[in-house]
């Protein structure tokens, strides 16, 4: 019974053949060593394939949430309540700061280039420059902050996680979005603030959903 590789393959010819293939064309069998090799060779430790796919997935998730019918109130006088900011909270809480922020950045880029991915089939530069543009541009920032806070306190209980998601998904978003709305609409901060109070209940529901789903996903995939 041969005990090592040389006994089974006495002729080293196949190995010599491999050396004819440039080192950069050799692929490694296991995904992990392939990652490590690629990162070593290109000096690119920024993102591996899985990160890119996750980023694309959560950008798509935010877009898909826009397909749910938006709830309009006040006679359509205001931007409708949509499920899309749930995508912001989930991307941050599930993917973490860097990947979550990039997922929403990707989403905003897709909207900016003219794809109708916002709730109600809106898209294009007009929306980003309009009154609710500040909220949209805040999304990557919010996802980043939520991701940073939630992952830093990964062992926190459900209330703390929920609080952190609410901080990033409501407080930070309004802090960026409301002054923008006040500026673009020439409204004055107090009036813009008054309008936005109507959105808090809906956003709180989304915080609860995001907290439960993110914790469930973390349990199902501990090293996401």
């Amino acid at each position: 019974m041969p005990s090592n590789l040389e006994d089974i393959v006495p002729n080293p010819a196949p190995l010599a053949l491999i050396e004819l293939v440039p080192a950069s064309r050799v692929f490694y069998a296991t995904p992990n060593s392939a990652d490590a090799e690629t990162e070593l060779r290109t000096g690119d430790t920024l993102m591996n394939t899985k990160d890119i796919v996750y980023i694309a997935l959560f950008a798509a998730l935010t877009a898909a949430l826009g397909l749910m019918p938006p709830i309009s109130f006040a006679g359509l006088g205001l931007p409708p309540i949509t499920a899309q900011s749930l995508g912001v909270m989930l991307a941050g809480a599930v993917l973490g700061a860097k990947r979550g922020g990039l997922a929403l950045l990707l989403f905003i880029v897709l909207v900016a280039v003219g794809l109708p991915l916002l709730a109600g089939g809106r898209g294009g530069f007009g929306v980003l420059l309009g009154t609710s543009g500040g909220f949209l541009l805040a999304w990557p920032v919010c996802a980043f902050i939520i991701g940073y806070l939630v992952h830093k306190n990964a062992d926190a209980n459900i209330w703390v996680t929920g609080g952190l998601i609410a901080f990033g998904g409501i407080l930070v978003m309004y802090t960026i979005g409301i002054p923008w709305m006040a500026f673009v609409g020439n409204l004055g901060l107090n009036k813009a603030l008054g309008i936005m109070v109507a959105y808090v209940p809906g956003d709180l529901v989304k915080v609860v959903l995001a907290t439960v789903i993110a914790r469930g996903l973390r349990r199902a995939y501990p090293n996401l």
Partner: protein
Amino acid sequence: MLDLYTPGTSILHRMTPGPKMAALAIGATALFLQGSLLITAVAIAFILSLYAVARIPLKTALNQIRPLFWIFALFFAVQWYFSGIELAVYVVLRLAALILLASLVTLTTRSSDMIDSLTRALVFLKPLGLNPEKISLAISLALRFIPVLGRITAEVREAQKVRGLERSVIAVAMPVAIRAIKMADEISDAIESRGYRS
């Protein structure tokens, strides 16, 4: 590709996305820096004449601002009440000009061209460690994932309907999220096994 582009052959359609984006940025900034009602009105007239150059019917142009009609009405009412009618007209016209200008870029540029230009422009970021090819991969994956997520949701909803749970948000959202992550893992393995280098 699903997109807001309106086909045409005008000079605005044939321009590359880069200059159009630059013009939009300058135009939008200029609109905010000036404070005169007259200039804003002239700007609107000029932007509408650009729609004529692009041979985009006025109806399409108005469709761009129609979803915002109620916001305009609200802002108009608030401004009129607090600051007088002149400022109210100015604010609403400025907003309309901004949205018409931005929509013109969107209407005359294919999303795919815009993504191509963007990817090319990002080559300059390569020394910073950002790889444009990764960005194109992420863009095409995201666009492909949208209908897939819709399909997964429909399937899960069907399955939960059997259990009488189709109205429970968590009972639907949780399996959708887990299946989506599982799919993402499989796809990233498939991409790597075909020799894609991240």
